[in-house]
């Protein structure tokens, strides 16, 4: 997979500015969809009391994920370095199969399409898809 071009980075940063203020809503919806549409992902959350869409733990986790993605946008020039500790967390503690990063990414894109139907153009879509794939790669760095 290719790395992010200058145009990709600009597109991502410009589009992500729209997200400000909507992080909770978007994050909650993305995680809710991931758990509902791809039930295998629920296996990572057996410690939650309530896995239903919009539940308290889902909402909280959605916010956590969105804070991390927003942080990644700010570190877009060095994702591997910037996401080092998150990679260690996912590799050694959480041990999420990296194939699932794609799943969450896809659900996030679906939510962005519903929230920003006019701004989420094909050009923005490809830049965001590349960005989330790069984030996934950075998170997978420490796995082995």
């Amino acid at each position, binding site marked *: 997979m290719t790395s992010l071009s200058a145009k990709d980075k600009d597109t991502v940063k410009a589009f992500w500015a729209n997200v400000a203020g909507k992080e909770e809503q978007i994050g909650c919806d993305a995680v809710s*969809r991931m758990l509902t549409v791809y039930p295998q992902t629920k296996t990572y959350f057996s410690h939650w009391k309530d896995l239903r*869409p919009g539940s308290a733990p889902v909402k909280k986790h959605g916010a956590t994920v969105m804070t991390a993605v927003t942080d990644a946008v700010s570190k877009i020039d060095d994702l591997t370095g910037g996401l080092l500790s998150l990679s260690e967390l996912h590799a050694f503690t959480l041990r999420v199969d990296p194939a699932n990063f794609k799943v969450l990414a896809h659900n996030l894109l679906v939510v962005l399409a519903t929230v920003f139907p006019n701004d989420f153009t094909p050009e923005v879509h490809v830049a965001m898809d590349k960005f989330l794939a790069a984030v996934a790669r950075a998170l997978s760095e420490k796995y082995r």
Partner: protein
Amino acid sequence: MVVWTDFERTAIQDIFSKIDYAVVGQAAFSRCLIVYPWTQRYFGGFGNLYNAAAITSNPRVASHGKVIMEALEKAVKDMNNIKATYAELSALHSEKLQVDPDNFMLLGHCLTIVVASQLSKAFTPEVHAAFQKFLAVVVSSLRKQYY
């Protein structure tokens, strides 16, 4: 045989009754060619696919998008027999078109995103799950005749 709940059947039929095949087909297929550019390898005869603007305004892309939606409608009209419905199309994609079947879900993802942007709040997680299941069955049926 695939078992569909009443909710799933209704959800899928509802989606297809609400969307404009020409609009959604063009949007989903052009998105696929833009977001996953390697899929362009199968459309050498389509003319100018040089950049997103060219793809979006390409008339052959638009008409093929509609063809895809009409083909999907066949499955919606006979949800108990999707495998049989696509037997011929599967052989076509395998033997004549020689499409890598991993590409099918890439188009599926783009279609999901376009449907989501059209239906907005109505595309709830539960409806989304039903749609994803439908796409998985379609893709699986299209893969059947590959050997």
